């Protein structure tokens, strides 16, 4: 089983790497990180703060774009091209296919995030003429961004098994937006007088992944390290949600009929 999943994952990775949009996004992110030095020079006293904020935000935003735009076509492209028939006629279980696809895109994102992080640290090294122990703080923030992207890929994959690429992209983006406002939605649920609306807000709060948990960019820009408990709980939280999302995608895909 693991061998087949690894093969699909590796093929998915190779397929993703062939996408030109991937390189465009990574190059654009690297340019933006480099531009932080120029932007910092027209301000006062925030050279490093701005570089960390802009660098980590670029890693997060461009990682998000890659996760959404490649994630949505993971399954639907196979169906569109009718290569799914060929694949499923082989001794490959449907859950292995979904798992392999997920891991393949995750690997792509890990490599991309690694490249962007290397670009960020090179820029930081150039700006400060060296690196200190304080500069490790952004690394933990990058790890949390990675967890966030793993969740977004899970959401994109789930919608990819259900819907067309355009709709999947819209749904995934909406889930990401709503997932950033969950605390406000809960507050709204508490303040609203309508009981049904209140319960609906509460349901959304517990059902959707809370993406704001993973955002520690501002703290990292001030050299504050992410506390160990937050790293552990966020990792566990992401793992549980990824299990739920990939599990749901497998369940839907298992039931799907291809004619």
């Amino acid at each position: 089983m693991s061998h087949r999943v690894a093969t699909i994952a590796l093929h998915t990775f190779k397929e993703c790497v062939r996408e030109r949009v991937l390189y465009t996004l990574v190059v654009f992110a690297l340019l933006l990180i480099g531009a932080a030095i120029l932007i910092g020079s027209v301000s006062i006293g925030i050279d490093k703060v701005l570089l960390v904020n802009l660098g980590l935000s670029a890693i997060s935003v461009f990682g998000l774009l890659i996760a959404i735009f490649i994630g949505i076509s993971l399954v639907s492209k196979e169906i569109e091209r009718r290569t799914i028939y060929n694949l499923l006629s082989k001794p490959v279980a449907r859950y292995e296919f979904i798992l392999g696809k997920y891991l393949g895109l995750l690997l792509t994102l890990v490599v991309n995030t690694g490249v962007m992080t290397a670009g960020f640290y090179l820029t930081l090294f150039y700006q400060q003429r060296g690196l200190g122990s304080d500069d490790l703080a952004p690394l933990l923030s990058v790890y949390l961004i990675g967890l966030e992207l793993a969740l977004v890929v899970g959401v994109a994959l789930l919608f990819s098994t259900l819907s067309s690429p355009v709709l999947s992209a819209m749904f995934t983006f909406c889930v990401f937006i709503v997932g950033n406002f969950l605390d406000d939605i809960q507050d709204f649920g508490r303040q609203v007088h309508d009981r049904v609306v209140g319960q609906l807000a509460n349901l959304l709060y517990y059902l959707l992944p809370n993406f704001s948990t993973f955002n520690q960019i501002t703290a990292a820009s001030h050299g504050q390290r992410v506390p160990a408990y937050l790293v552990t709980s966020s990792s566990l939280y992401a793992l549980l949600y990824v299990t739920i999302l990939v599990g749901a995608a497998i369940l839907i895909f298992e039931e799907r009929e291809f004619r």
Partner: protein
Amino acid sequence: MVSESETRAARRRKLLLSALLVLALAATLPLRRKLAAESAVSAATPDLLYVTSGQTLRRLCLGYNGLLADLYWTRAVQYFGRQKLRRATEFNALGPLLTVATRLDPQLLIAYRFGAVFLAEKPPAGAGRPQEALALLRRGVVANPDYWRLWQDLGFIEYWDLHDYPAAARAFEIGSERPGAELWMKTLAATVAAKGGRWATSQALWSEIYRQAQNDSIRASAREHLEALRAQEEINHLDILLAEYRKSQGRAAVSLTDLVRAGMLPAVPIDPSGVPYVVGKDGRAAVSPQSRVNLALAQ
């Protein structure tokens, strides 16, 4: 096979197209000038902030509040610099820009510290709004209770801009109790409480600002204040000598050379910008109109 007439027609087309390209490019020049003039007119209109609530922006920016705060701080710096270049006396957007930046990132210490200086300085050097500067710093100490330098800035504005010496001494005292605070904060609290408003105290405060300035414009401002303080002190001394001259000679001195001739001064003294002091129409010592020293800064 392509006939000769077809080749000639193709060459003509190419030439025509090239000429058209050059003409089009030439036509953009007046258009570009017109657009530049129009944008200059629009740039002269008052600065507007479409979203003035930092809390709202913080919610809308999907967690990228740190980056947005940096951009708002940069906007505040640019706005302040632009208004100063225009010699404008109105800095209406400065306060809201700083408020938004610090609401987006309450740990953006630089925005509290320099922002307060920009707001408190008297026009034309700054916005002349010390109360807004105090409000900004008070929000800063709430968000960063352990950062003693914000208390130092608070005390400084109470002392220099509002002349509230007991409040300044209190701020220095509280700041001196914060972790990492330097020892001179305690001394400063005691000095300000005992000798608030005196020249030596003001000089000590500005010297400290000059010593720890991390930015050229703040350092230059501190130097100008120190020069003004020194010039004011020297003028006070010259006024005493002029009064003595009037008493002993029975007439007022027309220039400081009269004091030199009377042996009261070894030479005509020069101010910190290197220009000799003069005697004004009112018979009192003053800085020359050619001097760079801005005595208003010493008030």
